[in-house]
């Protein structure tokens, strides 16, 4: 008989994500890593606004629900005064890359010793599927009904690549969770990011690609296929863009 893995204590409450959404998997991976690293009772979350807000109802840890986009700044304040706590910003792509681009980028620029997890589902999920800075060229959303025209709206942002190439950060990666192999891979990135913070190496960020079947108008399986066939090969490659030094 298969043995069920115990749900980490820090997230042992119901969360209200849509079927097929990636948030639940990502949160589970973060909680598992925190427990495995012995940090689940030494953690403070700064939670974004949007679908990431739903994490606030499920966490049994210190947490501050930040204003839209500001988790990078709030977590900076928390980490500076509590350097021995693990401080995590948990945000979506709209929160971190659009309204919060200044705070997200400036935290990386300063190489704050915090860990940032950004769930990228290529749209604003909570408000019903509007175009975000990660919406793909031609993608139909409620605010790009004829498909995203990148000539006037810009091209999708690649934040992990940006900070890896421009700033002196400790760790930067992008993961996907479309298969058990990808999930195990993503977990390695998450753990590396947390270890970087534990070892005072500096800023660490992992972007996690997630399906959004509700707003993409797809089944969960179709959403996975879109990530594997449309997103990762052409625009959002999975991998480490800045590996930890000596690792």
């Amino acid at each position: 008989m298969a043995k069920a893995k115990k749900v980490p204590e820090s997230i042992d409450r119901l969360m209200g994500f849509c079927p097929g959404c990636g948030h639940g998997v990502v949160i589970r991976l973060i909680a598992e890593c925190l427990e495995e690293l012995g940090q689940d009772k030494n953690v403070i979350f700064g939670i974004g606004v949007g679908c990431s807000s739903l994490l606030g109802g499920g966490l049994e840890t210190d947490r501050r629900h930040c204003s839209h986009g500001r988790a990078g700044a709030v977590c900076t304040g928390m980490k500076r005064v509590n350097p021995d706590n693990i401080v995590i910003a948990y945000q979506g792509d709209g929160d971190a890359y659009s309204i919060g681009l200044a705070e997200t980028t400036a935290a990386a620029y300063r190489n704050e010793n915090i860990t940032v997890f950004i769930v990228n589902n290529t749209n604003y999920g909570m408000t019903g599927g509007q175009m975000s800075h990660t919406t793909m060229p031609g993608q139909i959303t409620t605010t790009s009904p004829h498909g995203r025209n990148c000539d006037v709206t810009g091209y999708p942002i690649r934040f992990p690549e940006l900070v890896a190439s421009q700033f002196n950060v400790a760790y930067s990666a992008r993961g996907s969770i479309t298969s058990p192999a990808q999930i195990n891979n993503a977990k390695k990135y998450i753990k590396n990011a947390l270890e970087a913070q534990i070892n005072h190496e500096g800023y660490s960020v992992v972007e996690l690609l997630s399906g959004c079947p509700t707003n993409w108008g797809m089944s969960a399986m179709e959403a996975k296929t879109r990530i594997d066939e449309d997103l990762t090969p052409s625009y959002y490659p999975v991998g480490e863009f800045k590996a930890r030094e000596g690792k």
Partner: protein
Amino acid sequence: MGDMIKGNEAIAEAAIRAGARFYAGYPITPSTEIMEYLSGRLEEVGGTFIQAESEIAGINMVIGASSCGVRALTASSGPGISLKQEGMTTLSDEELPAVVINMVRYGNGIGTLLTAQCDYLRETRGGGNGDYRCIVLCPSSIQEAVELITLAFDLAEKYRMVSVFMSEGALGQMMEPCDLPKMQEVKRYGWGFDGKYTNKLIGIFDRDSMKESVLMNEKYNKVKENEQRWESGYVDDAEYVFVSYGLPGRSTKGAVEQLRAEGHKVGFIRPITVWPFPVKAFEEVNPNVKGFITIEANATGQLIDDVALTIKKVLRADIPAYCNPHVYGIPSMKTIKEDYNKVISGEMKEVY
């Protein structure tokens, strides 16, 4: 009397002595010397100074530090305080204490560099979204400023609110002799985050706004009852009572003393807290007073509204309220006496 010291530097040193150990902010004239001073001084006392990428980031960093139980502050001027409103409503919502300093400069939009009192209504009404108030403290001298900084932290902590220290650009830029308060022992609030989830939080979707509104009103009523502060003089037999705060309030006090010496029955109320508004000061006023006169450094008249509302509440009579908005600067005693003459000659009409 202590040594001469510049207002902004005295304010910054007073914050250190009050136990503040975290500052995050963005430069803006005429408040910048506060952050310049703290950038070196906080390091000396083992605190944290962050030059933020914006005022929005600065106040959100303050939220982070305050969440962990550290005495935290930020300082700015009108336009920068506009950007901080998002964080101030969040601090209020989460009942986190913090001190926000506004060294007010005149103007809408990016404004000017002139000393003024144009942010009165914004600060006293809670300038962000929602339905909250901040305690607002207004000094009229550098000595009073350093005392109010200590009080601002104490009140913020006692009531779990934001204290706004609202002064005018000129007070930050001028020098006066000042006795600085003693260095306080640094405390860390027990309810701050420690990573262990010692202090449980309600789920963000489990909050009950109806219940919270009752508690919020109870708290604000307690502040209104217990924390009104003001200076007044000659009000019990006054025919006309001036109301003015900050540096214009100091000038007004001087004008009232001169007018008294010349035989005029005038008095003054100088609010030190403008929220809560010092309603109790009006209870001491001669019931047969002929009128109230505000002296303000803004264009449209803002303090006048609170004066008129307080006349209705306390004196319950149709007593005229006159407004003298001097736009910017600090009106001289001579100017204030001219204002008075316009009122008694009938040249100036009441606003309410």
